[in-house]
C-alpha cells in the first residue's frame, strides 16, 4: 500500500505545478478513492457517541477518542445481527469500511460488525437486559413472594427428557412421598425453547384459575439441568423473565448452573442453584416435620402438666392450710366448749341437787344429832321429872307408909272426916294392898 501512497503523493506534487483547479465533486471523488483504497476494511476502536437509530433502520453514531471523532453508519442489514444495545459511552470495536460520503464532505466508517470492548456481545446484551429489567423493578425484593411452608400441589416447568425432572421427582419423593406434582412440559434449550417455557408457565397459571382455591398449585419450579451458557440462554430471555414476573404462582428458578445467575434466577421469587436443591427448598422433609410436631406436642403436654402441677401444689397447699386452720379452730372451739361445758357442768342442777342433798344430809345429820341430843336431854329431864313425879307420887308416898282413904262405893278420896260417918265403908289403899274397913268412929283433928 505504501507504494500507492507514494505514487499519489508524487502525483500531488506534479499537480501543484500546472495549476489544476478541482471541482468539488472531483476532489471529493479522489479523496474517496484514496481513502477507500488505502484503508479498505479496518478495525477501529473507540467510544460511541451521538448514537441515533434512524427510523429507516440504520444506525448513525460517531466513534471518538480523546482527540478525534470518526462518524459511523451501520445499515439495517448489518445492525440486525447486533445482540446488544449500542449506547453512548460504550467502548466498542468496529469492523467496517472507511468511506467518504460526498454530499456531506464527510469521511466515515460503514460498520459491518460491532462488538463491545472487553466483553462479548451476548454478554453485554445480557448486562443491558439486566439493567433494564432491574430498573423496571422485576428483580425487586418486595415483589418476591414468600414460599408456602407445606404446599399440597407443586408445579414443575421443565423438559420431560431432561435430567432435571428425574432429580426433582426423586428428591420430592424422598422428602415427602405423598404430594401432588403437576408437570408442565417445555423444551429448555434451542429454537422455540423460550416460547415453550413462557407458555408452560402461563398454562399452570391458567389451570389454577379453573381449580377451586384449596386445590390450587401453590408454587412452581422452573428449571433445567446443567449446560453451557448457550444451552441455558432461554432462561436469560426477556419474555421468560416477564412470564416469571407475571406468574401469580410463586416461582423457584432452578437453572442447573451452580455459580452464575440467569435472568430467570433474578426475577424468580426464590433461586435454587440446581433442580435438586429446588426440590429440597420447595418442601420440607416429612421426617423433620414429624419431628418438629412431636417435639411441640411433647412440650405442650409437659408445659401444661407443669402448670397443672403447680396449680395442684397451690391447691394442695391451700387445702393443707385450710385443714390446719380448721383443726386449729376446732381445737379452740373444743377448748371453749370444754370450758363452757365445765362451767355448765358446775351449774348442773344435779350438782346443785347433790350439793343440797349433801347439805340436807349434813343438816339432817345435824338435826338428828341435835334431836338426839335434845331428846336425850329431854329424856333425862323427863326422867328427872319422872323421878320427881314419882317421888311426889302418892304411891311413893304410900311407900312411906301413908295411905289413901277412898269412900266407898264412890271411891272418892277422903280428905276431910266431915264426909265420913260411922258405918261407911272405907277402902284404904296401902303401899301394898288395900284395907276395906268400916268406920267405927270419926275424930276431928287428928
Amino acid at each position, binding site marked *: 500500500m505504501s507504494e500507492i501512497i507514494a505514487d499519489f503523493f508524487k502525483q500531488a506534487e506534479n499537480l501543484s505545478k500546472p495549476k489544476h483547479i478541482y471541482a468539488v465533486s472531483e476532489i471529493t471523488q479522489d479523496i474517496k478513492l484514496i481513502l477507500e483504497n488505502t484503508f479498505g476494511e479496518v478495525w477501529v476502536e473507540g467510544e460511541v457517541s451521538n448514537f441515533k437509530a434512524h427510523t429507516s433502520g440504520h444506525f448513525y453514531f460517531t466513534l471518538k477518542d480523546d482527540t478525534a471523532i470518526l462518524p459511523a453508519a451501520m445499515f439495517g442489514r448489518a445492525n440486525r445481527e447486533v445482540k446488544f444495545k449500542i449506547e453512548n459511552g460504550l467502548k466498542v470495536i468496529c469492523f467496517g469500511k472507511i468511506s467518504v460520503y460526498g454530499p456531506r464532505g464527510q469521511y466515515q466508517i460503514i460498520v459491518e460488525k460491532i462488538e463491545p470492548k472487553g466483553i462479548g456481545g451476548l454478554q453485554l446484551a445480557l448486562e443491558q437486559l439486566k439493567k433494564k429489567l432491574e430498573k423496571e423493578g422485576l428483580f425487586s425484593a418486595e415483589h418476591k413472594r414468600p414460599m408456602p*411452608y407445606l404446599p399440597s400441589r407443586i408445579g414443575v416447568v421443565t423438559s420431560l427428557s431432561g435430567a432435571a425432572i428425574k432429580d426433582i421427582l426423586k428428591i420430592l419423593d424422598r422428602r*415427602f412421598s*405423598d404430594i*401432588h406434582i403437576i408437570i408442565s412440559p417445555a423444551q429448555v434449550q434451542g429454537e422455540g425453547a423460550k416460547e415453550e417455557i413462557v407458555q408452560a408457565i402461563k*398454562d399452570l397459571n391458567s389451570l389454577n384459575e379453573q381449580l377451586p382455591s384449596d386445590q390450587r398449585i401453590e408454587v412452581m419450579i422452573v428449571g433445567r439441568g446443567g449446560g453451557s451458557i448457550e444451552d441455558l440462554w432461554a432462561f436469560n430471555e426477556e419474555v421468560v423473565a416477564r412470564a416469571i414476573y407475571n406468574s401469580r404462582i410463586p416461582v423457584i428458578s432452578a437453572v442447573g448452573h451452580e455459580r452464575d445467575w440467569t435472568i430467570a434466577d433474578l426475577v424468580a421469587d426464590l433461586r435454587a442453584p440446581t433442580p435438586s436443591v429446588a426440590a429440597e427448598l420447595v418442601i420440607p422433609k416429612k421426617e423433620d416435620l414429624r419431628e418438629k*410436631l412431636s417435639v411441640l406436642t411433647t412440650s*405442650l403436654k409437659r408445659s401444661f402438666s407443669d*402448670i397443672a402441677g*403447680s396449680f395442684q401444689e397451690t391447691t394442695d397447699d391451700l387445702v393443707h392450710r385450710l385443714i390446719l386452720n380448721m383443726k386449729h379452730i376446732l381445737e379452740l372451739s373444743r377448748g371453749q366448749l370444754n370450758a363452757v361445758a365445765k362451767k355448765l357442768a358446775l351449774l348442773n342442777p344435779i350438782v346443785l341437787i347433790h350439793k343440797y342433798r349433801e347439805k340436807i344430809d349434813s343438816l339432817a345429820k345435824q338435826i338428828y344429832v341435835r334431836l338426839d341430843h335434845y331428846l336425850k336431854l329431854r329424856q333425862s329431864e323427863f326422867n328427872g321429872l319422872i323421878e320427881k313425879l314419882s317421888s311426889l307420887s302418892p304411891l311413893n308416898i304410900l311407900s312411906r307408909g301413908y295411905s289413901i282413904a277412898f269412900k266407898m262405893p264412890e271411891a272418892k278420896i277422903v280428905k276431910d272426916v266431915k264426909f265420913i260417918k260411922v258405918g261407911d265403908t272405907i277402902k284404904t289403899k296401902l303401899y301394898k294392898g288395900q284395907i276395906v274397913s268400916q268406920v267405927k268412929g270419926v275424930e276431928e283433928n287428928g
Partner: protein
Amino acid sequence: MAELKFEEALKKLEKIVEDLESGDLSLDEALKKYQEGIELSRQCCQRLENAKKKIDTLVKNKKGELELRSFDEDKINEATT
C-alpha cells in the same frame, strides 16, 4: 375449629406452647390452650399422613383446553436413558 393450613397450625401450636411455658396463665386459660394445642397437633399429624402421591402432566387437548394427564414415571426413565 376450622381447618388451618399446616404452616399456620404449626405456628399457632408454637405460640400456644410459648404461652404455656411462660406460665402466666390461669388454670382455665391453660386448659383451654392445651385443648386447642392438642387439636392443632392432631390436625397437623393428620395432614402429614393424609396426602396421596400423584403426578400429572399438563397438556392441551385437541380443543386447546388444559387437561391433566396422569404421568407415567417410567416414561422419563425411557426418555433419558
